[in-house]
């Protein structure tokens, strides 16, 4: 049997890395928390509804509990009063978890340069993807989600655990 001849086994088996399989499975079934703060949540719902159908990318199952979710979409203005609640929800999510800051309010405070508004949710929790817009169109939202999928696919388990352990200290 020559080297170029595929064997019977190679017809039914493919070789890959464990890490790649895990990343692929994680990126293909990202479950977000059902969680909206302001008008951006309307666009998020539109992205999840049938016209744009966010579910095509495996992320349409909005979970009602942070304990079953992988992704937190900060869709709206983060106020000082809401910030500890967001922090609690984020801490309740199991690892691995990702955060998308949707809209200019969640990324940098937006037009609310005022006493109550946290100037960007990254002061409260770490953010993976920032989506600009006020509010972002569902296309922009889906583009941001695809960027998050790219990030998940290129992530490495070793880096991830290093990050976690460094954060915990």
């Amino acid at each position, binding site marked *: 049997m020559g080297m170029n001849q595929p064997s019977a086994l190679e017809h039914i088996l493919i070789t890959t890395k464990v890490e790649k399989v895990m990343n692929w499975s994680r990126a293909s079934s990202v479950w977000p928390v059902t969680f909206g703060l302001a008008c951006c949540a309307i666009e998020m719902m539109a992205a999840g509804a049938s016209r744009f159908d966010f579910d095509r990318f495996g992320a349409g199952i909005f979970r009602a509990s942070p304990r079953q979710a992988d992704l937190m979409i900060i869709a709206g203005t983060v106020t000082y009063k809401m910030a500890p609640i967001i*922090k609690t929800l984020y801490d309740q999510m199991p690892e691995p978890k990702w955060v998308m800051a949707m809209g200019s309010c969640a990324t940098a405070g937006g037009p609310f*340069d*005022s*006493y*109550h508004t946290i100037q960007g949710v990254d002061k409260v929790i770490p953010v993976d993807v920032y989506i600009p817009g006020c509010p972002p169109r569902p296309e922009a939202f889906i583009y941001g989600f695809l960027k998050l999928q790219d990030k998940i696919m290129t992530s490495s388990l070793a880096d991830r655990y290093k990050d976690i352990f460094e954060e915990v200290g």
Partner: protein
Amino acid sequence: MSEPNAPQTPETPEAPAGPYVYDYKAAPNRQITMPKTVPLPSHRTYVAEQKAAAEADEAKWQKTLADYETAKAKAEAEGKDAPKPPVRPVPRKDDTDMKPPVPQEATDPDLLKLQALLGDKVEEVFEQAGELVCQVKKEAIHEALAFCRDEAALKYEMLADQSGTHYPAAKDFACSVVYHLTSISRRKRLRLRILVPEGFAPESACSLYPSANWMEREIYDMLGIRFQNHPDMTRILCPEDWEGYPLRKDYPTVGWGQRDISFREDRGGMLERIALQKAGQLGINLKQPKAE
């Protein structure tokens, strides 16, 4: 807020002692500009302003006439031609739409009835753009509201809105509280107003109008006016541990730096603070372990 009747003109307020780090002097574009006037609509003030303007105009005209007379006498003595007599300028008609409507004398029977019922407890009644305004003494607001609700000729059943405004340039008061009453059966609206100095606690309207409950809490939250006999005089919009009253004119729009706390550095610190406070309200001291 040192003296109740002094006009407050701090350019940079003192930040309270606490975990806040905001530096106002480093951000000059965020410093406060306090209003210099009291834009409170009032018929009495309007009449006084009009009278003062007319008097100033008359004085100016008399001065022009006197100047003309002296110039004429001088010209006659020197044998020259007499100067031209002055013409009184006609004020140009100001028909811009941007001006606020003029406060007018009260003619509505509701206002007159209210004035007859309350007597000298009414400070001022007027109409503006067809809206009825009655300013009563701050101690008599509960009585005035009771009249408005119960009197058969008035019958204002609903307190549609209640709001407050801060007037830092005013001499003898600090805030105004406005009660927007609606009569559903008579299809009329009435505005009651009180002027509240610093530290004065007006009587709550909750016993008459239950809708006043949250609105008075909001006024307390935003302006710091406490209401007497209110069932639950606590903050409603801001968190319970908030410092300052955000709708006051001397409050910086960016706050005292509360928003600049980084929760990522202070992991759970705020939650712990809230938990301690909640426990303190229930009479539990979580800070110190119980002695055995």
